[in-house]
């Protein structure tokens, strides 16, 4: 969680999930897609800039977006959550789930000419967990990594200290894209600025605050199996520019300065039209959720207060108003695009302020003070909700204000205060907060354990920031990550989702959705598993 912006996701390149929701994928050309052409340059404007282009270091979503073009992974995740070969032609999982043997494809070369071999896999993974790398995300993805054994140039065995059902998903993310071992040996200082992988585009330059420039890798011949074509990418070059202001970014698209933009404000998605169309992809992982601090001794330890809060807020209307119907309202602690998502959670409770009031009265918050807030034993019903501006996206501030205003109507005071990142870290450390909001993109249900696992407290590198200990839930989640049996996992994760909803452990708000605006002459853009666009197949009609 971290994540500042939705930080992380993992990628996979699957066009998936999304299809079917609206136009998307390859034939973005709206039916006029003719024969793909080669050449041309495409500029993609995105609001956030990477902090480092070494995928093992950075935790940002935008790093995945950029690095996916530069780095290939061992395996690729398909829309259904299963995996298919990429740089690894095939692999075997040990019976105890603690080691994986990868057989590498031949003929793959990194951009610096180094051939791909088992040593590169070892170098990449060792680099990720090396403390000197100061990895902010990749190392956590493969927690339990013990080492890689180079059996022969094309065979690598990766060992884990415990079974990990999400291991392949981790490997499929750009954060663990295979790096050139020669580049990894070079000067560590410049690594953020010189990513060297084997992907369809080569890194050219990164002008800070302006953009990253990539050019086609003419030797490329090893896309994942179900890619739209084989051989080198169709675009001569790809530029990713950084334009934080929504207005400006969209203006740049409509005025034709750029061919594609990330994060079209939902309010503008419908009104754009004309020469522009909007592609959508719902993010997998945890939706944007308000997590409740229900640890013993807190106000929210009382389930009635949690339920009351849920019922006090008209999320249907709120999400619709803020996102113009472009984003779905979320019900489950997992988004629909996540493997093992359980649709049965939908509609589990309704907006009902009368019921909320009843629940609060029942919980003993019966009197009101001068400002109209409920009071019990001389204490006001106050919930502390600190948040930071630099993690804010998607107009979440508006959601916060809406929740705050509606909670007030049933007598709950929410202190929705903006603080800086250091302060929020301290508050979390002291557990001096009642609500916390975040979303997390990763096409993997184990994300639930990250948020709710008894073992996933902040101190242990997890996202259970309140240090909740919910044995019933914990058992389901531990079970889910320890078995490779798909049916078993389906059952366990369905139970887990229902458990969270039934016990009002959190308030899922909306499903983050990638709205990518493209001009009508751009075709072939698909979405990776992290709901970011892929440019390997992209082309521009002339």
């Amino acid at each position, binding site marked *: 969680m971290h994540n500042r912006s939705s930080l992380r996701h993992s990628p996979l390149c699957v066009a998936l999930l999304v299809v079917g929701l609206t136009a998307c994928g390859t034939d973005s050309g709206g039916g006029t897609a003719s024969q793909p052409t080669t050449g041309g340059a495409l500029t993609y404007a995105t609001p956030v800039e990477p902090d480092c282009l070494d995928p093992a270091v950075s935790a940002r979503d935008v790093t995945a977006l950029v690095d996916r073009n530069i780095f290939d992974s061992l395996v690729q995740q398909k829309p259904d959550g299963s995996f298919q070969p990429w740089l690894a032609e095939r692999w075997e999982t040990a019976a105890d789930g603690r080691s994986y043997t990868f057989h590498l494809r031949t003929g793959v070369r990194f951009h610096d000419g180094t051939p791909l071999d088992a040593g590169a896999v070892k170098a990449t993974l060792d680099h990720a967990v090396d403390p000197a790398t100061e990895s902010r995300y990749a190392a956590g993805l493969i927690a339990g990594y013990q080492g890689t054994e180079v059996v022969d140039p094309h065979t690598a065995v990766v060992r884990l200290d415990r079974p990990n059902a999400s291991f392949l998903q981790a490997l499929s993310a750009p954060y663990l894209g295979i790096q050139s071992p020669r580049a990894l040996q070079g000067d560590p200082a410049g690594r953020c600025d010189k990513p060297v992988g084997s992907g369809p585009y080569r890194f050219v330059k990164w002008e800070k605050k302006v953009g990253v420039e990539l050019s086609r890798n003419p030797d490329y011949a090893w896309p994942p199996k179900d890619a739209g074509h084989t051989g080198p990418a169709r675009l001569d070059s790809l530029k990713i520019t950084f334009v934080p202001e929504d*207005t400006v970014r969209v203006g740049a698209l409509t005025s034709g300065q750029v061919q594609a933009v990330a994060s079209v404000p939902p309010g503008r998605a419908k*009104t754009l039209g004309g020469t522009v169309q909007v592609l959508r992809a719902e993010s997998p992982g945890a939706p944007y959720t308000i997590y409740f601090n229900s640890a013993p001794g807190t106000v929210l330890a009382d389930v009635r207060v949690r339920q009351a809060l849920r019922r006090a807020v008209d999320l249907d209307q*709120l999400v*619709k*108003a*803020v996102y113009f119907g472009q984003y779905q309202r979320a019900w489950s602690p997992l988004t629909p695009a996540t493997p093992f998502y359980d649709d049965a959670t939908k509609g589990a409770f309704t907006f009902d302020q009368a019921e909320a009031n009843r629940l609060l009265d029942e919980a003993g918050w019966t009197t009101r003070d001068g400002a109209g807030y409920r009071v019990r034993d001389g204490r006001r019903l106050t919930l502390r909700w600190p948040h930071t501006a630099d993690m804010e996206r998607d107009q979440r501030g*508006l959601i916060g*204000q809406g929740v705050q205003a509606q909670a007030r109507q049933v007598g709950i005071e929410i202190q929705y*205060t903006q*603080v800086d990142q250091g302060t929020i870290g301290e508050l979390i450390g002291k557990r001096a907060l009642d609500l916390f909001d975040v979303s997390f993109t990763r096409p993997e249900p184990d994300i639930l354990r990250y948020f709710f696992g008894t073992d996933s407290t902040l101190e242990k590198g997890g996202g259970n920031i309140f240090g909740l200990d919910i044995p019933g839930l914990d058992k389901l989640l531990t079970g889910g990550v320890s078995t490779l049996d798909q049916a078993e996992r389906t059952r366990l994760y369905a139970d887990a989702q229902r458990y969270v909803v039934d016990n009002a452990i959190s308030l899922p708000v909306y499903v983050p959705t990638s709205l990518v605006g493209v001009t009508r002459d751009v075709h072939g853009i698909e979405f990776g598993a992290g709901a970011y666009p892929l440019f390997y197949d992209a082309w521009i009609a002339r």
Partner: protein
Amino acid sequence: MTTLLTPVAATLPRARPALIAAWAVLGLLALAALWPDLLATAPPDAVDPASALAPIGPDHPFGADQLGRDVYSRVVHGARLSLLIGLGATTIAVSVGALLGVLAATAGRTADEVLMRITDVLLAFPGLLLALLVIAVLGPGPVNTTIALGLAAVPGYVRLSRGQALVVRESGYVRAAVVLGRSRAAIFFRHVLPNALPPVLVFATVDIGTALMASTSLSFLGLGPQPPTPEWGSMLAEGRDYLDSAWGLTVFPGLVVTVAVIACYVVGAHLRARFEGRTPGGR
């Protein structure tokens, strides 16, 4: 924006109608600041998702924002903060600045030298940079914005009031008072202070407009008061994304800022002109 002591010249419109209009605007703003409910039609934070981005109409004279809050009522309620910040920042700047400036002018060479060198150092910063630094220390928020803008403007007032105090100290009437045998304290309190401060205060009236503008800029950058507190700068920042669908969200808060600043300038310039016309050598 922040660099205090606006060089707005005295050539501002001094026609009666302009002045009356400016006072009327300030009066209206004061009313909005003191008793917003007299003017507003709805509470500023009354969320109504169903009427999000409602167009301008009888229910919503300026339209409704993303959460269905009434923009007009929010603009009305925004007056209190904006005016308080403008007034507060200027008050801080003037009181601290004048105190130090007059002190520098009268407390002897060493104190003067030290104070003025520090002032030189601080004047070498753009005002906004100082304000940003202060906000970096104190954190965002209306009180901190006020302090930040006030402190950022202090060096200018130190210099201004020191200059004024020096002029007065060298004036014929202070020398006349020396010849008459008045004590140092009497001269300081009866002549130097009362004559050095008014020009500084008059300058400050114009600066209220500048401080107001600067505070909305900081809010625009996200360093001002927290939502859902209505504030013109942050309303404009939030509304920017809807410029094509709901232009009222941007246009009205911006317009109010401009009108408020104009009113401050016109009234301030008028006070200044009146003041200068009354002192010898002012004309």
